[in-house]
């Protein structure tokens, strides 16, 4: 995982609440055995008509939002399935942070393992962001803050270990492996065996 310390970008806004992982990437694209190239499938059924043509009403197809790296979404983003293809698709497309008032548990966990920053902000900051698509904002992982264009700073909560891993690009598998002795000790000493 690549380290992420700061991120400055304009936003893309999807105000819908409860955007589920089937919208982020439909199940029919999950027959892949790779994690690459899924950006083309991101929000596929919202981006494209049934005949494969672009849906020009959908925000990802608006020229002025191309290359924006921060997605602002309605409450409860990423609910539904555990597919890690959802953060893979977002990252492959170029999104590096998702901001909402609530982010579903499994999606958040998956995002953090891939260096995609899930940010939960207060309702006031969220409302401002929803109403200002394309706003240029700065995210600082070390201080866990978002700075809005007017200079207002909002603090967001993040698990200290998750922040450490993001800042240092830590592979969490390595962290568990360092506890090899504790795992062996647990296996040998537990009162019952599965």
């Amino acid at each position: 995982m690549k380290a992420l310390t700061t991120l400055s970008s304009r936003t893309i806004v999807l105000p819908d609440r409860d955007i589920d992982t089937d919208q982020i990437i439909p199940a029919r694209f999950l027959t892949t055995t790779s994690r690459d190239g899924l950006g083309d499938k991101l929000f596929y059924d919202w981006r494209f008509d049934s005949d494969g043509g672009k849906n020009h009403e959908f925000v990802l197809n608006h020229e002025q939002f191309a290359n924006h790296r921060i997605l602002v979404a309605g409450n409860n983003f990423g609910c539904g399935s555990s597919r890690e293809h959802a953060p893979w698709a977002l990252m492959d497309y170029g999104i590096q942070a998702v901001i909402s008032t609530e982010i579903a548990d499994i999606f958040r966990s998956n995002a953090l393992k891939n260096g995609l920053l899930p940010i939960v902000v207060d309702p006031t900051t969220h409302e401002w962001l929803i109403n200002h698509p394309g706003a240029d904002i700065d995210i600082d992982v070390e201080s866990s803050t978002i700075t809005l264009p007017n200079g207002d700073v909002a603090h967001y909560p993040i698990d200290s270990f998750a922040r450490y891993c993001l800042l240092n690009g830590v592979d969490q598998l390595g962290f568990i492996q360092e506890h090899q002795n504790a795992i062996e000790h647990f296996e040998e000493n537990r009162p019952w065996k599965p």
Partner: protein
Amino acid sequence: MSVEAPRTLYEKVWRDHLVVDETDETPAILYVDLHLIHEVTTPQAFSVLREHGLPVRRPDLTLGTMDHSTPTTPVRSFRDLEIVGESAANQVRQMQANCEEFGLELFGLDSSHRGIVHVIGPEQGATQPGKTIVCGDSHTSTHGAFGALAFGIGTTEVGHVLATQCLLQRKAKSLAIDVSGTLAPGVTGKDVILAIIGQIGVDGGTGHVIEYLGDTVRTMDMDSRMTMCNMSIEAGARAGMIAPDDITFDYLEGRARVPRGQHWDNAVARWRRLVSDPDARFDKTVNVQADQLQPMVTFGTNPGMVIGVNEVVPDGRNDPGIRKALDYMQVESGKPLTESAIDVVFLGSCTNSRLSDLQQAADILQGRKIADGVTMLVVPGSQQIKKDAEALGLDKIFEAAGASWRESGCSMCLGMNGDTVGPGKLSVSTSNRNFEGRQGIGARTVLASPMTAAASAIEGRVADPRSYL
């Protein structure tokens, strides 16, 4: 001597699996007792093992099946099974190759034990009270019906478990859902869980592990308890749990992977302690009155958009979310769904594909025909359930009614194996998600119980099953 603080069921199972406890700086390292794997969410994890030259730490605690990408078309022999699409076929081949290379047990295409991952675990008795169970699949919450701590994980975490048998976890908050009252005839566990999600919302359980309590739950059979725990994730919860009792032990006794003889007695004695202590503190408690419930159906595009089968679709004028959902679903505010003509009925999925689900639907369909223009798929949750249902003659009842009797698999629940509802078509489905396009591009889904699905198939519109009891 200090007195131990009262603990919830969740806290007991959590504590029992702590390799390293959590601190402010670091999450806990939690040991996993059973790792279920399937073809869709594992290939990239096996690639990571290969890149690092790592073996699977505990092949004996890992069990594989194939369910999502596999077709359910009836076949005489599995040599005839044609997987739909080259990438799905490749995924199935990779699953076989990965399990062979890493020495893992796999219920392959031709196995009589194959089935939906959340059906086979309990069926084999691999799912047991007090275990930690994970799978790269959000409906792993199903196994919590046995008093296990069971939850879905992503593919990176699948790799962690394969390599170390452990996961990094923060302890969740606890949510007690106390369900009381006797269910009316025609009202099932599916209706109860849909009503709960309607009450607390699709994010009502976020950050929490739910424990279902109360006399309604205590009298439910295991199939209904599994249906309830299965859909915990649809309320956003990390997991759903039900304390094990005699109903649980009766279900498990004699199954292939449970202990025998003295070991069984010891296990049951240990499992009986898996209850929340009387004074245990939950972060949140919700009470549900079940005796007034009616059969429930969804009208929108998430499982929280729920009404009673005869109630009218709510007004979406002041709610953009509801408005968008009604637009997609092409249903009208102020009218009941029973006026909506349907095209497809799907009886199956990890939510409702067990023998009692099939039996309940068959009881309604016996001697009746499904309506003209309606396609009905009946997809048993496992090859074993298929066999058991056939021994009871249920397949004949379904076929005589005009339904298609299939091989086991996830089928139309998520439209990635050749079974789809069709663009614009309306389906009554016993599965768990009515998201836009979940059952195939443009498909419109009404979630319901097996009984409601059967009644709807007969009438060709969303229908109240109570007229058939």
